[in-house]
């Protein structure tokens, strides 16, 4: 099914909720991203297959990443370092990226996932991109899938 049009927001929200709950017991609710909201950190991971390639971007608030890293490491949030917040987002990009390519057909088609990396900001929006956002008690996480 290597078709971005089939990647619905509901599926992306489900991926975010399930991934966060399984790895770190972070419970989230869907959210419409406020247009003026500018998350603190970003990470990306590329994917490619014969029929489709692109990039997946994750963006989150520091406070959200503090909760995520705290739960992953079993430490208090005030013990989480700046570097650990970045690491939490980068690993989440890897996990969410893996689930998104499954939604695009990776179980049967030959998809390849790149290595996750931190990025300083997001590229300009395109008409074909797919987005979803969630919020936890502490903050906000946004995912965006950009075809190339």
């Amino acid at each position, binding site marked *: 099914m290597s078709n971005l049009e089939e990647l619905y927001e509901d599926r992306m929200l489900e991926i975010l909720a399930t991934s966060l709950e399984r790895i770190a017991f972070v419970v989230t609710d869907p959210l419409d991203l406020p247009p003026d909201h500018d998350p603190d950190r970003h990470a990306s991971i590329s994917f490619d297959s014969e029929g489709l390639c692109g990039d997946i971007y994750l963006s989150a608030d520091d406070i959200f990443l503090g909760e995520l890293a705290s739960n992953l490491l079993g430490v208090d949030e005030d013990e989480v370092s700046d570097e650990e917040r970045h*690491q939490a987002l980068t690993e989440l990009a890897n996990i969410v990226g893996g689930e998104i390519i499954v939604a695009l057909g990776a179980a049967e088609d030959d998809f390849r996932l790149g290595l996750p990396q931190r990025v300083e900001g997001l590229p300009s929006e395109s008409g074909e991109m797919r987005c979803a956002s969630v919020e936890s008690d502490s903050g906000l996480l946004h995912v965006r899938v950009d075809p190339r």
Partner: protein
Amino acid sequence: MNGKVLIVDDSPILRRSMRRALEQIGVTGEDVHEAGHGQAALEELERFPATLVLLDLNMPVMNGEEFLTELKNRPEYRDLAVVIVTTESNSGRLMRLSNLGITGFLHKPFEPEDLREIAGQALGLAS
């Protein structure tokens, strides 16, 4: 407890999270070593007699499949248990890995309990 575990994953925070889960089944600090990619893992195995490798696939330098292929070419590691911990979902690729001889798969995202269970089984620990 004689289980010795090598965690091979390029994510430092996930390695620490996995180390934490292993501590909860009695596999403590000195019995757990880490490597950030396959080449580092091969070097670590020369110093650290692991009985179980928890292996990510998508890594820089030497990925998990390359590491596993190299490992299976070395008779001294024939009995080493390998659990693949991965986001990989392609059925053909998973079958190819399975044919290389592995102990199990753990799909990311996983709960700590899932890791404790599969590692405990591989190490022969009572759950």
